[in-house]
């Protein structure tokens, strides 16, 4: 670790000030507001306010909808992470083995990352629209009646595909970089010892990629839990029958549509705790295992 020493005590603070100000105004202050609000019960217009202690949290604990949302979020996050990382690794390995035009493929594969989640959602919504979409037409040919408006599993499939597709690009870039840092000498040595390509991949590449994989795992879980709001809002709006109502969408819906500020704030406090936990895990493990 490199250390820079400042003679002047004030200068480092001055240099940090803009970032600190932004952190305070856009992160700490709203977070404090959310914590405060989570202990209050308030009508929509903010005319009557009562301190209710932990009752907003208790109500969540007893709410089947909230418990359902926790479960939905877990399933969704796991599916998005596995799917996007799996495909990304597959593509990265394929590109890594290419001799020519690697950069062309890399550029093309990174494109979807530039698409905003809401736009990605709309795109897939069109492709899978039961009335005008092209996929339901083909699925109908093989005898599957696709309808994400009434089928819970179809709706979940749609939002998982839309969310994972977008994230593949990001994961792909990291995997390509990770693969390039795996020393070729190790693979060659293994090859000389008689290990086949599959064996080499699992015994050499996978272990050496593990810091990248672990980092991506945390990033993808955070992505699936928070950044996919746009996808959900543009496609299923949490339906049908709450089947795709992930935690972050529920915070928005209960707070902004339902005008239940107390419950919405309590839910965002819980989400905040989840993020803190994930961040701690990431720093504990990644910082120890990865040498940047």
């Amino acid at each position, binding site marked *: 670790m490199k250390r820079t020493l400042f003679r002047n005590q004030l200068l480092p603070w001055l240099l940090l000030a803009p970032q600190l100000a932004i952190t305070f105004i856009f992160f700490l202050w709203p977070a404090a507001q959310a914590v405060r609000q989570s202990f209050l019960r308030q009508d929509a217009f903010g005319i009557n306010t009562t301190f209710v202690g932990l009752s907003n949290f208790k109500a969540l604990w007893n709410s089947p909808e909230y418990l359902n949302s926790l479960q939905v979020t877990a399933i969704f996050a796991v599916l998005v992470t596995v799917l996007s990382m799996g495909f990304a690794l597959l593509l990265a390995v394929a590109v890594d083995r290419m001799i020519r035009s690697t950069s062309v493929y890399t550029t093309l594969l990174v494109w979807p990352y530039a698409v905003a989640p809401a736009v990605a959602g709309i795109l897939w919504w069109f492709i899978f629209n039961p009335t005008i979409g092209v996929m339901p037409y083909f699925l109908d040919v093989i005898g599957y009646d696709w309808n994400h408006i*009434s089928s819970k599993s179809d709706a979940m499939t749609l939002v998982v595909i839309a969310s994972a597709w977008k994230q593949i690009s990001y994961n792909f870039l990291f995997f390509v970089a990770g693969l390039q840092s795996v020393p070729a000498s190790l693979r060659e040595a293994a090859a000389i010892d008689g290990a086949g390509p599959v064996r080499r991949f699992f015994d050499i590449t996978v272990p050496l990629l593990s810091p990248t994989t672990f980092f991506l795992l945390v990033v993808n879980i955070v992505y699936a839990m928070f950044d996919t709001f746009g996808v959900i809002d543009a496609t299923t709006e949490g339906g049908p*029958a709450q089947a795709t109502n992930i935690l972050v969408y529920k915070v928005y819906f209960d707070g902004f549509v339902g005008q*239940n500020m107390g419950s919405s704030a309590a839910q965002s406090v819980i989400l905040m705790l989840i993020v803190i936990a994930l961040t701690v895990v990431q720093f504990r493990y990644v910082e120890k295992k990865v040498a940047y």
Partner: protein
Amino acid sequence: MNKLFAASGVALIASLSAANAQTEIQWWHAMGGELGAKLEEITKGFNDSQQEYRVVPSYKGTYPETMTAAIAAFRAQQQPAIVQVFEVGTGTMMAAQGAIVPVHQLMQEQGANFDPQAYLPAVVGYYTDTDGNMLSLPFNSSTPIVYYNKTVFEKAGLDPNTPPKTWAELEEFSTKIRDSGAATCGFTTQWISWIQTENLSAWHNQPIGTEQNGFGGTSARLTLNGPVQVKHWENLKRLSDEGIFKYGGPVGGDNAAPMFYSQECAMYMASSASRAGVIANAKDFEVGYGMLPYYDDVEGAPQNSIIGGASLWVLAGKPDEEYAGVAKFFEYLSTPEVQADWASFSGYLPITQAAMDQLSGFYGENPGADTGIKQITLNEPTENSKGLRFGNYVQIRGIIDEEFEQLLSGSKDAQGALDAVVERGNALIAEFETQNQ
């Protein structure tokens, strides 16, 4: 040249000071597209008619977005004087004492020309308190009716000029249509909540909740798991299984209209304000109009249907001269000319008797345009058919959709689904009650 500049400068200053002398009134609304353009035209008519006030309409997005924006603005003390709120937000707005100025009170305080008797009770009843005082001014109101495909009716050997009157007839017609191959599905519908639950209850004079469907206060609770509603949901499930009825999706049922336009379904229950859209899209067939069907074994049916749409609420905390302007503007909006213009353009219902009389010529020339107004004025509204008013109702509508989907998927029966609507809905209503104590 310099003179010209000086003159235009003077003119500019003069026009600015004239603008400053005018009192500006902010109006936040949720009317996009052509309706929004018409709304601005109407507002311009008011602004040009006098010098003192200038109403500034601003489009704020969907109904929930507009309401949310107004509430957030109120919390930040930046609220507009007038906001358009959809009918299910009525409970929330009404409970916000201190945040709103009831329209009857505003008109009285400002000495405006305001006769509550001039308004149609079936329309304004939704927005009055139990004493009959108008709380908000209905702006765009509609009611669900039946649109049917006359061409398909003819192909199936049915009389194209006779829409089904009862649910038994609707089923009989649908079966004939499907069996003859004229269309693959009998009927579809918008809004399971608004049409197949709330309006079904009112149309059969069945209570939706206690305390006059919530008009009596925030202690009211839902009771829409009665025998008529259960029987109807059971029927819808059965007809859906038989392929006679096709579900168009939650909330407004976005997939219902394409099924009717593509002649897949022969009948379509939808808002009377959808008429223009239906005509524009019904390219290959002729459209007929009918009232909602009813069960003829239910006593008191048909009663009258209830409205949907939105009304204009006046928010508190603005200077008095703005309220004087709002009162003037509401007077203008209620005139028969403005009402008739708006209603004939949009398909929304007129709010006064005078406007309705003015529209008789238009209704004569446009068959079906008066089906909605006939239906809501069919009988004097009862406690069960005035409308409904519950807190957190936006979410309760969502619950109705969810439970209906559970019914369709077979994981619940009609009684179980409606019991769950009542149980989950009442929990939200109780929450609302404690928030507003």
